[in-house]
């Protein structure tokens, strides 16, 4: 299983899903130590990223203008 290099861009959903799949791997496979160590390190890395993301406290609210007559042209987001 090849993994892309961890970047700041990885979404919470992707990171969490990958962590879950690693957890599942550990719980359903006959763990090969070399592979296991690699996955463990990856898992820790993901957990760290997820924790950082969880430490964010901000949500952004964008108010969309009413555009009932001009629905084909919603660029003013």
């Amino acid at each position, binding site marked *: 299983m090849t993994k892309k290099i961890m970047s700041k861009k990885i*979404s*919470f*959903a992707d990171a*969490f899903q990958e*962590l*879950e799949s*690693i*957890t599942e791997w*550990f*719980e359903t496979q006959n*763990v090969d*130590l070399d592979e*296991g*160590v690699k*996955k*463990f390190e990856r*898992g*820790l890395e993901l*957990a760290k990223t*997820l*924790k950082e*993301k*969880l430490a*964010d*406290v*901000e*949500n*952004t*609210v*964008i*108010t*969309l203008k*009413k*555009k*009932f007559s001009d*629905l*084909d042209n*919603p660029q003013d*987001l």
Partner: protein
Amino acid sequence: MSPAIISVSDYLGLVNHALRTIPREGMVIEGEVVEFKVSQGKWVNFDLKDEKAEAKISCFMTVFALNVPLQSGMRVHVTGTSKVFERFGKFTLNVTAIELVGEGALQKAYLALKEKLRVEGMFDVARKRQIPRFPERIGLITSGEAAAYGDFLRILRNRWSGVTVMHTPVTVQGKDAVQEILGAFAQLNALPIENRPEVIVLTRGGGSLEDLHAFNSEAVVRAVFQSAIPVVVGVGHERDESLCDFVADVRASTPSNAAERVVPDRREMVTNVAMSAERIGDRLQYEIDNRSHAIDRALSIFDRSLARLLQSMSDVTRRFGYAFERFRLSLVATVEHIDRRVQMIDSRMKVALDERSRAVMELERVLKSIDPREVLKRGYAVVRSAGKILRSARDVAPGSHLTIQLGEGEIRAQVETNAVQESLL
């Protein structure tokens, strides 16, 4: 003065002129719907019956103007213009607006629409779509002034972060509510895919059945159903329900609950992530321990085998030592035995030799006594001819050479004569 003569249609023209003077604004007619029917899918006819007196008005409208699910027996408020249709001579109320009144009627209409939509399969569980576990963009359709808006954002912020909320402000009740909500759905669904929210939340606070009118409107229900983006609906308090609740992909009980349903809880996720990391760590540790124990076991088995091997080697060595010692002792014993035997043989040999020596000496003495040389010494001679001892004179002829052996030395002689004498001596 003779009366003016006018035609029927002129007269009805006067009547209808008079009818138009009845004001439309500031007045609604309340009555009960009877004989409700729709013809050709277009024309709606019913009678509006006075609830107390024997009185009724024929009513007419198009299905396009009918914005409530009407049924016979409902109490309604009707606005319209009255007219006598010349052709039929029939007084008719042209209905421009109709609204249901009384909980009973609204309830009845609500249930009728609910049943209709249910039969269409709009509430089927099978069509409910999953909302993403970690949405990054959430479309929010609600009034910006309502408590629902604040509640939703507050709970959202408490639980989760990093979300972009795309708020489309709408009025959630009143005559414009339906159009604005429909517009909001259309607007969010029309966004380019990369800007489009992953889930839409349609929410408002609680209210009466009349307040919730927009959320029970067939058009809004269909908009929720047709939205390409999954929809979470949260209306009012726990006990409130609307048709939008049933058609929603996820039904939340309140605006706050909608926030809870739409994003996970940060604290839970922190725990979850920590537990995941811990579990894989534990599992890896377990595997390492397992192998380490296996190695320990192997080593201890090896140790024990080695100890056994050393033990048995030392046993063998000891036994060999004992055996060798026994062997040595027996060797020593044998050597001593042989020594004794040799000594014994020696002594016996000596005895035997002594005995033989004495016998030999005796024999020597005897032999000496019979030695012919001893006899010769006493004056006898031995005469040989051609190497043979002569025992008779006849054995030689004269001239034969003789060898005469004496006690000391020999004589060579030649026979002169020979005669036999019986006794020479």
